[in-house]
């Protein structure tokens, strides 16, 4: 049995967020003798699981990468944010570390492929076929066949080889089999990594950081590229695509953020968007102008609310999806759409001239 057919039998999908079938990716990589990059960046806000894999299962990660790499092991590179504890650990193990700036889009798949070939850590346009077959960037620079796999995915491959597809499928659901990691965050506990599976109760996952506070209004799933979900939906919610999709959310990179209930959510979203505005790679017009403009409009609303501004915010975020080389603008649009839905009472309160949280308190959600 080939490795690819084992992965197909097991139903392993990428754990970096896109949930693409790993077997398909591996076959394409083998077909093009692609270079392997293992993504250990934890690029999403609140993500910590890639670093956790490096910290606790580095030997298995390296063995998994060797099994997957179509080329000799010395060509495998491990991507991590420059100067991060993960990068230090990878260096310590004598691995070839691809250090990338700690920017939001620098760990996107095509950003890693770009910087690995001497370019900038910025996303590239995906003209067909995907970069696993090689291709050219927008400036015509040749891109060698390269495959990027998330660190957890690579670790799962080694586990699968050791313990088999039946063991793997004994976790999770039929639609989403296998064990999976989730990073849970609260205002006081950052980056708590849990070993769990699809179908787990959300409330159980949240108990790792003290549980859902009684006065909580929302939980953020998927960070800046994710969605707020109302807290009253959490008790009956399972960690699965089917359950989360009913609320407009998804498993994504596996990040859960408990929102500080005493902070004004309008201010919280304002802070997220101010960060987002500075994280555009500045390549695609709709993103480099659109995201800062959206952030500025939200900020104006926070300072001086008006109904036309709210209309402008929804119009502008509606113009973001599908208009960038990467999915960063799509993620920001989803984030804003979910915020305006989950926090509509707060938005209406601000419109009527009051804030529902007179005792607002800053919560450092953006602290990495």
């Amino acid at each position, binding site marked *: 049995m080939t490795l690819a057919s084992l992965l197909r039998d097991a139903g392993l999908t990428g754990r970096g967020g896109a949930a693409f079938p790993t077997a398909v990716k591996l076959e394409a990589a083998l077909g093009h003798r692609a270079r392997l990059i293992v993504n250990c960046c934890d690029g999403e806000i609140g993500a910590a699981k890639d670093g956790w894999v490096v910290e606790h299962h580095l030997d298995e990660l390296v063995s998994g990468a060797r099994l997957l790499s179509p080329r000799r092991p010395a060509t495998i590179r491990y991507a991590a944010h420059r100067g991060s504890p993960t990068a230090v650990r990878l260096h310590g193990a004598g691995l070839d570390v691809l250090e990338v700036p700690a920017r939001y889009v620098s760990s996107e798949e095509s950003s890693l492929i770009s910087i690995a070939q001497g370019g900038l850590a910025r996303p590239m346009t995906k*003209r067909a076929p995907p970069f696993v077959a090689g291709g050219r960037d927008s400036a015509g620079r040749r891109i060698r066949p390269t495959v990027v796999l998330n660190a957890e995915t690579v670790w799962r491959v080694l586990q699968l080889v050791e313990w088999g597809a039946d063991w793997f499928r004994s976790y999770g659901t039929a639609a989403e089999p296998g064990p999976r990691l989730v990073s849970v965050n609260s205002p006081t506990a950052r980056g708590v990594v849990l070993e769990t599976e699809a179908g787990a109760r959300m409330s159980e996952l949240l108990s790792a950081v003290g549980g859902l506070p009684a006065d909580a209004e929302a939980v953020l799933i998927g960070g800046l590229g994710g969605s707020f979900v109302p807290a009253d939906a959490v008790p009956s919610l399972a960690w699965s695509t089917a359950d989360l999709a009913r609320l407009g959310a998804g498993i994504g990179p596996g990040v859960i953020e408990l929102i500080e209930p005493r902070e004004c959510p309008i201010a919280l979203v304002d802070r997220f968007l101010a960060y987002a505005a500075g994280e555009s790679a500045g*390549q695609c017009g*709709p993103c480099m102008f659109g995201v800062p403009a959206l952030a500025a409009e939200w900020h104006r609303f926070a300072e001086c609310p008006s109904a036309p501004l709210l209309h402008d915010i929804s119009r502008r975020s509606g*113009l973001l999806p599908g*208009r960038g080389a990467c999915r960063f603008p799509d993620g920001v649009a989803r984030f804003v759409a979910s915020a305006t839905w989950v926090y509509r009472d707060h938005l209406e309160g601000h419109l009527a001239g009051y804030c529902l949280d007179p005792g607002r308190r800053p919560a450092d959600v953006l602290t990495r």
Partner: protein
Amino acid sequence: MSSRAERDSRPALRPAGAGMTELRVDRIACTGHGVCASVLPHHFELDEWGYPIVTDPAVPAADGTTAIRLCPARALYRT
């Protein structure tokens, strides 16, 4: 070769099939010249900064070729 007047009078939407092509914008290459929206006004609009909003990516093949050739940033391509 049809005249400009004839081209402009064509219906905006045609059934997909023979003679049609699907255009995409390379958002990194695009610098907002807006030529696509001039050549194919029923398929491209421009946002406030002049970057295209694709309202209908399926265009007649000949018009697609023209738009690709005229884009100063060489940002248009077929899928």
